Every structure is written in structure tokens, then in C-alpha cells.
């Protein structure tokens, strides 16, 4: 009896220890999970699917291993696009793409010769310390969610791609990541695979915070927050101290917990101070502080910010293309290809979607016409040619059907909406403007009687070092110098204007750019 009681108790004790100890061991082990197993099984699925899509169904089963060594691009790239995703779900929603679309996108990119580069290589490229092959891009995911890793990783493994994940570091230092965010163990597992780099997104700045006492809310990094206890807004010094601390904690978490250098910081919501509601020069201040902690940082770009890819001259704040949930593989490929640097001479009478990016009003691309028109809320419209950023000395000519509007401008040395030169054609003359950091300077103005030259539709602009010429029907009608050094190179674009909303419209049938 006593023996039985003792043995019974001992066995029970061992059993409980086994179950409790085991379940805690399993809980903290990122490999003994259903998700991990499914992920690894999916790798074989994708591997097979990719083989089938490349070599056909029979080819996928062929034992002969054809030499499909990636054709190394000899040419080097001048710019690198960075893509940003969030989660990858079974079915897409507003922010997150579906797994099918994502898979198709990545397969399409791989087949078109695109290859991922690491954050370190990208940084070296930006700093001018490294060159990278053509068709390089960076794949990034924001927030450090489980559904950025498990569905994606087998696809990366299949395609020999790698990715960067920007994590909210409080979930790896103190707060329970729950079932939504990746745990430290999982991040280590990702790191170990060699396919993932873990970079900081924020420590705790990923939600909206009160910026006044009346329920107003704003972003963490771009606003002075409301201190409820003291019933006041924090001071600028407190604001700077707060964001410094957050940057430091995010950086430290990555470096201490994951032993990975914090190279790039992705601003939550892509807001680096631009959307500030209560600080005047938030952008300058925020970027200045952030520079103390990270070599580079990222935000999600839009056409108004100019060319969507990154060049070695962009030093600190870099652009990411937010891949929208409804983009299919063709769309993504088109976006990336349009962003590749275009060669001179350039001649286009057939327009490709995504080659032109529109920053204002409406832009419509049909096969042989590019239409710019203002809409009900704008007095004009503008757009620029993607991939033309590096052009320096050239003649830009366009056949324009000027349907309505007071002025038509040809833009050159275009860097973005606030840095470019332009020839502004009106009914009565032409003027040359230089726009630097949004400061417009008219450097030449000529009255022309269009009738004497002939009412031809061909207009142009020629830029050569510091000289700007405006052309009508290939004849120079105005010349000016003193183009600032800032605009030593840049692409081409159009802009139209009228004093009344919705009443300007041009149709462009042929664009040609000749090197000088």
C-alpha cells in the first residue's frame, strides 16, 4: 500500500513535470509549431510550382538538372527600388495582399531577372561604397507580424530571395507578442535562416497618441503629445527627448537582442514629421535626431515625392514603394520596370502604363496618347517620366495638341515637384522658370507671336550644363543661363494650368529626348 502510494505519487510528479515542462519548452520553441511545419511543407509546394511555371509540368519532374544558373547581369544598376508589404493573408484586405498575388508577384519578378539585395548591401550602395547588378531590389515587410513571415518564407527560399522585416521592438523586449507579432524566438529563427534581416520600425510609436486634451490624435514621431497628468502639451525639448529615447530603444533592442546592426529605420506610417499637426519644422528636427541613430531611414513614397527608386546621392531618408493589395504580378513588374533608368536617346510614341507618374490633376495613358487634364478640384495637371532622373544634357521635344488651358510647361532637370526647370508656354509668349526647394524664379521671359512662327504643335526644351533653351517647332525662342548646381541633372515632365478648375487639357502624341 505505502509502496503503491509512493510510486503513484512519484509517477504523477514525473508526469506533471513532463507535461508542464514540455509544454513550456514547446511554447518557447519556435521550431516545434504547426506554423513552422506548414511553412516548411509549403516550401516544397512552391518549389514544385516554380519548377512547373519555368520548365513546364514534365520539366518539373525531370531528373536532369538543367543548368539554370542565374544569368548574372553584367550591367550595374544606378538605382534600387524598395518594396514594402505588411501581412500576406489568404484573402487580401485594404492593407494586406493575398498569398496568391504575392506568390505570383515574386515568381514574375524572379523570372524577369529581378533579385533581392540585403539591407547591408543596399546601404553600401546608397553610401556609394558598392555597386549592385541591374534589377536589384529590396523586399521589406513592416510591423514584424507572424503573417509576414510564415506565408512568405517558403517563397523566399524557393526563389533564393531575402527580405527585411521592420519590427516593433517592444514585442521582443517586454510585451507579449501574442499570436499576431513575431516573438524574439521566431525572429532568431528567421535570422538563422539567412533569408531575413531584422530592422527597427519603432519601439512603441506605432499607434495614435493624444495631441490635445480634446481627443485629437496624431503620430508619435511627428507631434508634441498631450500630457494628461499635467494637462499640457509636452515641450519641444520633451518631444525631442521622447523620440530620441524611442529611437535608442528600438536600435538597442535590435542590436542587443538580435546582435544585428540597426542599419535602416522605417518610420511608422511613413511619417517622418511631414504630417505634424503641432510642430512647425518637425521634419527637420525628426530627421536630425534620427540621423544620430541610424545610417538610413525609410518612408513610403508617392509621385509627389519624385522618382520612386533610390540613388546613391540620397543620403538619409529613402523611398519605399507601397505595394497595394490589389496589384497583380503584371502591375508590380510594370512598376519596377518603369522605374529602371532609361537610356538616351529616348523616343516614345506608344506609352506604357506606369512610365508616367502623375503628381497633380489627371493623367491618362492610352496606347498612343498621353493626356493631361485638370479635374474639378484642380486648376491644372502635371506628370513626369519615370526613370529619367539621371539624364543631364538633352533636348526634349513633344508633339502637343493644346486643347485648353492658359499655359503648357515642359519640365526638365526634374527631380521632384519642387526642384526642376521649366519652359512655360502661354498664348502670347514663353518664360523660363527655375524652381528650387519650391522657390520659383523667372529667369527669362519672351513675348512671341505664335502666328509668325507657325502654329505647329511641336514644342521643346533643351538643357545643356547651365543653359536652358525653349523651342517651338525646333527653333529656339528663349534662352537663359544660371541653372543652379542643384539641378545639374534630372528628368522630363509636363505641367498645364488654367485660372479655372477643370479647364485645361493637352494631348501628347510623341515624346523624344536626344542627348547632346
Amino acid at each position, binding site marked *: 500500500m505505502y509502496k503503491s*502510494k509512493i*510510486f503513484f505519487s512519484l*509517477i*504523477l510528479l514525473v508526469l*506533471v513535470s513532463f507535461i*508542464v515542462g*514540455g*509544454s513550456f519548452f514547446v511554447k518557447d520553441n519556435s521550431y516545434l509549431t504547426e506554423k513552422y511545419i506548414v511553412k516548411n511543407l509549403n516550401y516544397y509546394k512552391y518549389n514544385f510550382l516554380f519548377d512547373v511555371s519555368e520548365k513546364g509540368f514534365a520539366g518539373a519532374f525531370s531528373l536532369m538538372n538543367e543548368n539554370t544558373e542565374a544569368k548574372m547581369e553584367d550591367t550595374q544598376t544606378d538605382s534600387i527600388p524598395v518594396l514594402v508589404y505588411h501581412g500576406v493573408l489568404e484573402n487580401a484586405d485594404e492593407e494586406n495582399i493575398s498569398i496568391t498575388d504575392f506568390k505570383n508577384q515574386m515568381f514574375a519578378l524572379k523570372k524577369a531577372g529581378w533579385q533581392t539585395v540585403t539591407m547591408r548591401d543596399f546601404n553600401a550602395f546608397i553610401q556609394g561604397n558598392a555597386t549592385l547588378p541591374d534589377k536589384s531590389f529590396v523586399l521589406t515587410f513592416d510591423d514584424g507580424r507572424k503573417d509576414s513571415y510564415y506565408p512568405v518564407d517558403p517563397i523566399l527560399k524557393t526563389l533564393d530571395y531575402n527580405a527585411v522585416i521592420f519590427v516593433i521592438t517592444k514585442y521582443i523586449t517586454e510585451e507579449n507578442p501574442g499570436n499576431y507579432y513575431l516573438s524574439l524566438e521566431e525572429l532568431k529563427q528567421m535570422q538563422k535562416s539567412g533569408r531575413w534581416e531584422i530592422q527597427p520600425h519603432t519601439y512603441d510609436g506605432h499607434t495614435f497618441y493624444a495631441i490635445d486634451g480634446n481627443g485629437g490624435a496624431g503620430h508619435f514621431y511627428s507631434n508634441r503629445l498631450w500630457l494628461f497628468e499635467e494637462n499640457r502639451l509636452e515641450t519641444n525639448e520633451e518631444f525631442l527627448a521622447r523620440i530620441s529615447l524611442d529611437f535608442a530603444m528600438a536600435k538597442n533592442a535590435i542590436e542587443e537582442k538580435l546582435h544585428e546592426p540597426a542599419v535602416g529605420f522605417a518610420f511608422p506610417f511613413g511619417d517622418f514629421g511631414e504630417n505634424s499637426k503641432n510642430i512647425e519644422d518637425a521634419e527637420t528636427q525628426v530627421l536630425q535626431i534620427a540621423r544620430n541613430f541610424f545610417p538610413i531611414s525609410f518612408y513610403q513614397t508617392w509621385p509627389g515625392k519624385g522618382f520612386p527608386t533610390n540613388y546613391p546621392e540620397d543620403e538619409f531618408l529613402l523611398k519605399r514603394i507601397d505595394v497595394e493589395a490589389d496589384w497583380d504580378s503584371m502591375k508590380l513588374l510594370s512598376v519596377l520596370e518603369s522605374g529602371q533608368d532609361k537610356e538616351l536617346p529616348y523616343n516614345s510614341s506608344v506609352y506604357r502604363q506606369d512610365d508616367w507618374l502623375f503628381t497633380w490633376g489627371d493623367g491618362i495613358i492610352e496606347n498612343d496618347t498621353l493626356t493631361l487634364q485638370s479635374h474639378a478640384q484642380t486648376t491644372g495637371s502635371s506628370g513626369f517620366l519615370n526613370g529619367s532622373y539621371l539624364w543631364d544634357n538633352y533636348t526634349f521635344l513633344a508633339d502637343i495638341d493644346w486643347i485648353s488651358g492658359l499655359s503648357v510647361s515642359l519640365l526638365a532637370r526634374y527631380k521632384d515637384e519642387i526642384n526642376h526647370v521649366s519652359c512655360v508656354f502661354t498664348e502670347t509668349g514663353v518664360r523660363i522658370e527655375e524652381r528650387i526647394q519650391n522657390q520659383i524664379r523667372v529667369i527669362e521671359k519672351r513675348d512671341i507671336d505664335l502666328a509668325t512662327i507657325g502654329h505647329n504643335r511641336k514644342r521643346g526644351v533643351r538643357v545643356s550644363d547651365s543653359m536652358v533653351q525653349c523651342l517651338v517647332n525646333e527653333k529656339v525662342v528663349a534662352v537663359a543661363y544660371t541653372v543652379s548646381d542643384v539641378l545639374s541633372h534630372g528628368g522630363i515632365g509636363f505641367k498645364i494650368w488654367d485660372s479655372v478648375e477643370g479647364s485645361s487639357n493637352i494631348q501628347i502624341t510623341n515624346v523624344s529626348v536626344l542627348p547632346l
Partner: protein
Amino acid sequence: MNGYSESLNKYRSFVQERLSKMFYEGSLFLLGFILLVLIVLVKSKTATEFFTDPLLFFYTIFVTTFQLSRVVAAIFYKSSLAGVDAGSTEINYEPYVTFVIPCKNEEAAIEKTVRKSFEADYPKEKIEVIVINDGSTDNTLKVLRSLKSEFENLIIVNWRKNRGKRHAMAHGFVLSKGEIIVQLDSDSYIDPKTFRNLISPFSNPEIGAVCAHADPENADKNWLTKMQAAYYFMSFRILKAAESTFLSVFCCSGCSSAYRKSVVMPTLKEWLKEKFLGLPVTWGDDRSLTNRVLRANYKTIYTDKVQAYTICPEGIKIFLKQQTRWKKGWFVNSFFASKFILKKDPFVALTYFFPLIFVTLATPFMATRALIYNPIVNKVSPFYYIFGVLLVAGIMTIYYRYLDRENKYWVYVFAWSAINMVILSFILFYAIFTIQNRKWATR
């Protein structure tokens, strides 16, 4: 030469048999270990919520450990039974035995029950059978009368009006001459060859009651009876055996158990008049009687060496009524036993009795939470809960298969677990709510 090859063949088949057994038991052990690892995997799901919901984690570990502890305790059953035999103080123990069989309208079954009782492998002059005909309206009495001519030691007590099972039993106990009273249901009987094993444990003076192993005779009737067959085997050979390991079986089942008369008699009156919330208790007579034996500081055991057969309900309605009655009996007697068990046997009280009460009462709530509340409110799939329940059933089944390779009903353990999860555990609450309904309601 011939003798040599013969013995070689014998030796070969012996080795083969041993190897096959080893392989079989080895596979079961391996399978059990795999299930245990799977249980750990399921529990780790709860462990992830340990910091937000530690109580849930403790609960699930507690319940699982409790359920597994039954198997662990059952493993020691055989050695415990050997201990009982070793405590015997009399050699050639052959006391006078009285069968007490209450019956009502059992014309079809009673003859077999009586006949098998007299056929018992035991000195005929030391057997008497008392049948209490409790107001039968069929030919039961006629059948009994015809048997009387054959068996001298058959005593028939005929009541015109039905007075209830408990009264009938008590009356039989009072009339009995035997030192040991074997209580049988009218549709149950004990395999005569094994009968002696029911009496022999009483040679140990500490033993107050012995419960036989019962299986349903009508097991192959339909899925319900097959499921009950699996449940009977599990509840006798594992759960009762586990209780028996520590010599405290809380229910020597009414279908076939033996009592030491000297232990029962002093408590008979009180047992007969048992009341709960002011009304007489009409069910759970067996459990109630066993508890009184325990309270009198005697040991109660289960023996797998006696094979009894009984009839189990073949229709769902009667089955559920029987379950309800058993749950009521369990509920009422849990109150009764809780008053003395801690003092009598703290080990059993703390490792089994009180945990069982907690688990039984909590299960319906946790099942509701996992199967209904969580899926609807929190959108949490009940998969892990169900999987966990089936895993524990799996461990039970493996031990079941180990104990009796020939028993073919083992698959139904899973059916039982599933039904227990969604229906039977809830019946407890129905039973508690209708506790004031004292009707017997199976006959």
C-alpha cells in the same frame, strides 16, 4: 528425433508468442508515449497564454493529470489485489453466502440469474438465494415457484405492492443467514466458475465489500450497447481498479457485489431511510451502501477475477435516464462521503475524491466555454480542446488494449468520450436541477 523436432516446434511457437506479445506491448507503449507528447503539444497552446491566463493553464494541467492519474493508479491494481490476498487470516475460507436479488417483472431473466447463482463453484449447502418479488405484475412469481421445486435453498419473498429496490434489498439482508451477502440485479448473473473469487477477499478481515467485474451481456445489440460495453470495461477495469488500488472503491455496483453482513447490518436502517433535502433517496443505493462500508472503516475493493454479466439499456432514452440516476446518486453520495473521507483516508481524499468532484463539476463549464462560448465570442476554434479530450481517451484506450487484447469494443471509448464531452457531462446539471424528482424511472 521426432521428440526433438516436436520440442523444437514447441519452443519455436513459444518464442514466437513471446515475441509477438513483446512487439504488441512495445507498440502500445510507443503509441502511448507519442500520445503523451501530443498532449504536451496541445498543452503548450495553453502555456502560451500562461501569463495572461494562468488559471486556465493550471486547470487544464490539473484535469489532464487527474485523468492520467487514474491510469497510473490502475497500473498498481494487481499488486494491491495481491496485498489483499496476503492479508488473509483464514485458510480454506468458505463462509455461508446469501444472494439477495430484488426483482420486478423479470419473468424472462430471473430464471437464469437464480440458476447461475446456484451453479456457483461453491459448496451447495453454503448457498442460499433470496429473491424479493417486488410487486411484479407478470409471471415472475410463477417462474420463481417452479424454480423453488428445484432449489431447496431458494427463498421467495412476494410483495403484492411495489416498495422499491432499497426496501427489497434491506429485507433480503435481514432475512439472510449468510456471513457474506451477494447482491445481484435481477438481470445480472455471475459466471459460476469465477464466483469463489468474490468471496475469498473477505478472508482478509479488513475487507467490507467486493465489487465484481461486470460486462453487458447484450453488448452487440447496437452502437449504444457497444459504447456502453467499452465504458463498462473502462470504468471497471481502469477506473474502479484505480480506486481499488488504494482499497477505497466508492461504488460497488448494484449489479454484482458482495458485502460482509456484519458491516452492513448496523447501518442498514439508516441507509434505508436515507434522505436528501428532506426527501427519501431512491437511487444510488449501491454507492450509498458502499460509502457506509467505507465510513465503518472497512476497505472496499474491485476484483477482476470475477466475471459478472448484466443488461445495459438499448435505447437512448432509457440510457439517458439511467445516466441521470447515476449522476444523482454520485452527487448525493459525494456530500455524504466528503464528511468522513478526509479523516479516514487523506491520501485518497486529496488525490482522488476531491479532485474528482472538482473536475466533474468544472467539466461542463469548461466544455461550454471551449465548445460554444469561445468559438462564438472569441472566434477561437475548439479544435485543441476536442483534440486534447480525444488524446486522453487515446491513452485510456491504449491501456485498455494492453489489459485485454481480445476486447473488441475499444474503439467506442472515443465515442464515449465525445458523447461525454457534449452530453453526459451536462447531464450532471440536469440531474442536479431535477434532484427533487425521486422517481426511479428505468423500469
